[in-house]
């Protein structure tokens, strides 16, 4: 996959510039919704830029390549994707070019009794059915075509048991596999999400990795989480668990062609880890990545 290779991090404006140098990072992952707001323009909802934070983010990213990771597309909503997100990405493609684009394999809007789209409040997983797979595959193919850059879908973490399933799809791995096969898009393999689901649904994440099309993985996410009410949560609230680092080692040793690893943390937990702690997590990701990419590592 063309584009940046190595370790990336989100654009957190509260953090010091010193974290955003090529010494520590190879690229920056932008969540564009953070710099936009919804506005009704001529009866139509649009995502319009908030100039101050957007300019600050662009200055922050001046020295590094950028990839986009949106959160509002709701690619799995049966009634339709969130079109303002697509129009925002149209504009960004020319104003702030990106090497690839990713979204989450989930839905977060449904229709209410009046037929109007409502936010669900949390994103939900798609049932592993033929209908869901084919719906998303068609949309993913059109998104990839629309922007002319690779489009990746992220495997989500969730806590819902007994989703309706078609036997030929089976589970979340079958769903992703069929979408990738039909659409031609790639996967953003979120190892922390995989780890969460493995704990909460009682399967072995290392074994499950064998069912992931690693040849189609264009990016990996790692993050931290925590326990609550007997569930392990994808909280993005701190350091990456050792088990997830192990999964990263396992993944990259099986598929050294995977170009990119991103460490994720939510803004509200930045203070908890601090710039030094964040730098340590990035260094560790880079050490693992370079171990599997010795030539690229030496060149970098």
């Amino acid at each position, binding site marked *: 996959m063309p584009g940046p290779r190595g370790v990336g991090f989100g654009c957190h404006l509260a953090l010091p510039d010193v974290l955003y140098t090529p010494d520590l990072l190879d690229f920056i992952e932008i969540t564009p*919704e*953070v710099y*936009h*707001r*919804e506005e009704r323009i001529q009866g139509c909802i649009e*995502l319009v830029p*908030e*100039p*101050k934070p957007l300019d600050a983010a662009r200055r922050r990213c001046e020295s590094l390549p950028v990839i986009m990771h949106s*959160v*509002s597309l709701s690619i*799995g*909503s*049966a*009634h339709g994707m969130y079109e303002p997100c697509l129009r925002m990405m149209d504009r960004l493609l020319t104003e702030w070019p990106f090497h690839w684009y990713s979204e989450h394999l989930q*839905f*977060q809007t*449904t*229709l*209410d*009794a009046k037929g109007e789209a*409502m*936010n*669900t*409040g*949390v994103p*939900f997983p*798609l*049932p592993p*059915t033929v*209908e*869901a797979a084919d*719906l998303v595959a068609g949309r993913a193919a059109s998104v990839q075509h629309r922007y002319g850059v690779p489009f990746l879908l992220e495997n989500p973490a*969730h*806590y*819902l*048991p*007994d*989703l*309706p*399933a*078609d036997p030929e799809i089976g589970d979340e791995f079958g769903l992703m596999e069929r979408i990738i096969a039909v659409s031609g898009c790639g996967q953003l393999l979120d190892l922390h999400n995989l780890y969460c689901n493995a704990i*909460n649904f009682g399967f072995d994440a290392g074994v499950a990795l064998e069912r992931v099309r690693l040849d189609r993985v264009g990016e990996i996410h790692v993050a931290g989480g925590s326990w*609550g*009410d*007997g*569930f392990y*949560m994808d909280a993005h609230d701190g350091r990456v668990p050792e088990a997830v680092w192990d999964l990263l080692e396992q993944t990259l040793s099986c598929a050294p062609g995977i170009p990119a690893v991103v460490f994720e943390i939510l803004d*509200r937990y930045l203070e908890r880890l601090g710039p030094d702690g964040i730098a340590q997590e990035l260094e560790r990701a880079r050490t693992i990545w370079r171990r599997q990419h010795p030539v690229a590592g030496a060149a970098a």
Partner: protein
Amino acid sequence: MIESLATFQARLGRAVRGGDNCPIDPHSPGFRFTMAVRRSWCEGRSIMAARAVLMLMSDIDRQHLVSEYVDQGGGLDWFQGTEREKFLAFLASRLPDPSHALTICQISQALAQAQWGASTFVPPEQRAETVPVERSPHAALVRFYADPGAIMMALNGADELPPLGPPTHAVLFAPGITNLFRIATDAEAALWATLAIADAPRPLVTALLSEGVLVYKA
């Protein structure tokens, strides 16, 4: 026979908003935990949207207002700006008037509107005196009921909130004002309140038009 994706999603959407006929066992630990996470996200988005206002309330009042807002379907928006606008509007309708919390709420609303207007603001060309004017939708006048410095110290956690008194300062917010706000004069505050343009000195009206406090009617 598996139900359609649209039916599954509609049922799940209704269930998370308190409806019945959930397609997932609503008593399962996984569904109940998902609902708890959803509640926590909604409350978290609301708190993030109005942190400064909520800081001026007691824990009980804060929890009560956030809970009431989320119970009414608030906290769902993914966009912080949109959520901020909705939650501040809710708070403005619930907070005692006058109160320091309402003042900070109105300042938060006014700043957001002025910032928003500033991204496209161009001072208008002067028109005939007969052209009617109105308040800009991106402008506001907010009154303080104690020394603003003392309220800011309380917001910083450095001091207790001062007691409420008569209005001390009126602050104008508008997209064309340097730094988006300044103290209003008595004449400006009166003009803002009454819009009695015919009785106001023309230079005052012109100045407020150039700062985007007032705008010509379309």
